[in-house]
């Protein structure tokens, strides 16, 4: 454990991190489904200090027509950070990073979407980061999966995302912004928990094979926990429906 040497630049001492978390502790997560009326599906996530809105439109007509595929729907994804999401104003124009993350997030969600149900249509996913504090692509994936489910789009299962990394030689879970900036490695992971399929795996920095295995284990375990939270969020949103359906049936039975 830490506690030895160093003073001002410490991100880890007595086993606790700057925000008081343990090495393997997730930041607090809040999920809400169906927050935008006009979108077909939407979700809002707070993951630590990250605040992200995801909206899904679709399936809808393909515009322009030539991008349509004959046998399934085209999935498009836009990851964007609002100018006020970071301390230094971020230019609203899509950066190279946002372009890459859009692609990478789309590829992490596509395996779960049963796009064969809607040939020649499109499914558009929008992820807007309102406040960023490292781990936005993972939180974006988590909220986008919920938004897709909320839109009623058929999916094999939900995708959840979480990152792990290395700070001061120690493998830790769920880096915050300070830890990401000063750390030695960042490993974002997205997982489909039921089928145990990894749909996003990126690494920034350097890890030994052992460290990688550790970090990967940590991240995938966290993804499973987040998947349970996603399920809870969906049930919270729609649980009343079931109660009413059951009551209607009981009334009918008496009549």
């Amino acid at each position: 454990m830490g506690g030895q040497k160093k003073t001002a630049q410490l991100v880890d001492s007595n086993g606790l991190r700057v925000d008081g978390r343990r090495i393997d502790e997730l930041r607090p997560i809040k999920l809400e489904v169906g927050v935008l009326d006009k979108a077909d599906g939407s979700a809002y996530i707070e993951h630590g200090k990250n605040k992200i809105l995801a909206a899904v439109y679709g399936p809808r007509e393909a515009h322009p027509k030539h991008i349509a595929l004959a046998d399934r729907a085209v999935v498009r994804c836009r990851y964007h950070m609002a100018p006020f999401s970071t301390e230094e104003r971020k230019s609203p124009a899509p950066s190279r990073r946002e372009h890459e993350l859009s692609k990478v997030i789309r590829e992490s969600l596509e395996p779960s979407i049963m796009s064969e149900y809607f040939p020649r249509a499109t499914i558009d996913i929008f992820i807007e980061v309102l406040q960023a504090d490292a781990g936005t692509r993972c939180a974006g994936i988590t909220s986008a999966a919920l938004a897709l489910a909320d839109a009623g789009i058929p999916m094999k299962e939900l995708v959840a995302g979480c990152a792990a990394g290395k700070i001061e030689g120690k493998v830790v879970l769920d880096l915050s912004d300070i830890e990401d900036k000063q750390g030695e490695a960042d490993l974002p992971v997205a997982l489909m928990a039921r089928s145990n399929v990894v749909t996003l795996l990126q690494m920034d920095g350097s890890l030994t094979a052992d460290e990688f295995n550790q970090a990967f284990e940590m991240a995938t375990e966290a993804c499973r926990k987040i998947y349970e939270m996603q399920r809870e969020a969906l049930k919270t949103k729609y649980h009343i429906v079931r109660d009413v359906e059951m009551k209607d049936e009981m009334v009918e039975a008496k009549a």
Partner: protein
Amino acid sequence: MNLHILRNQHLYVAVFVVQAKFELDQLTVHAEKKQLVAPGELLAEGPYFAGENTYRDGSKIYSARVGLADVIGNKLIVVPIKGAYIPRIDDIVIGRITDIGMSGWQVDICAPYPAMLPQSETPMQHGRDMGRRDLGHLFGVGDLVLAQVIAFDRTRDPLLTTKGRGLGKVTSGRVARISPAKIPRIIGKQGSMITMLKNETLTDIVPGQNGVVLAIGKNPDQERIAVEALYMIEREAHTSGLTDRVRAMILEEMKGK
């Protein structure tokens, strides 16, 4: 392919007869009737059929959408809570003309695909062959039409007809656009809700399967009240005692009208 499934069905019927005394639902079905399920949730294991909005992976059947699970015989289905309108053959829909072509009209039926209404599928007009200008006289851009879906598959856009009783241009009334998943609630069990709406607002209510509902009354006030009632049902579809509350709202509005 169909024969194969039939054969299996007979097999399973025999098995179920033997096990009739057991609680079939406990055997290998994990979801209770009307249980709220999310995509990827395990519904059942074993010799069951994966019905609509479910899928099979090996010996297990999972839900593909957010909805209420149900078991019908040996088939598992999920009734979705929300979803886009996917046209089915014979559906009655209300759409808006968006374009006039050489041989027909393009119609927006609030689906992921634009629909086509060919001129050949409109009732004969004195047996004449119409040019493009005349097509515009029958239905213009922006007109609403009540039509029926006659063809739709994965390879092409839906095809409509207005040859049929009551089909054709909508000439009066007000229209409400609600989620297609809520149309069954508008109609109600055995038509209870829609009958109540018609009687209390004195309007004729024509629900399109695509979520567009037409209300035709003798005066605009009745139509407005009917439309308000429809939106109220959509908002509160998940609550109980809805029929009574909607009736109360309508009666309140109808006073003095």
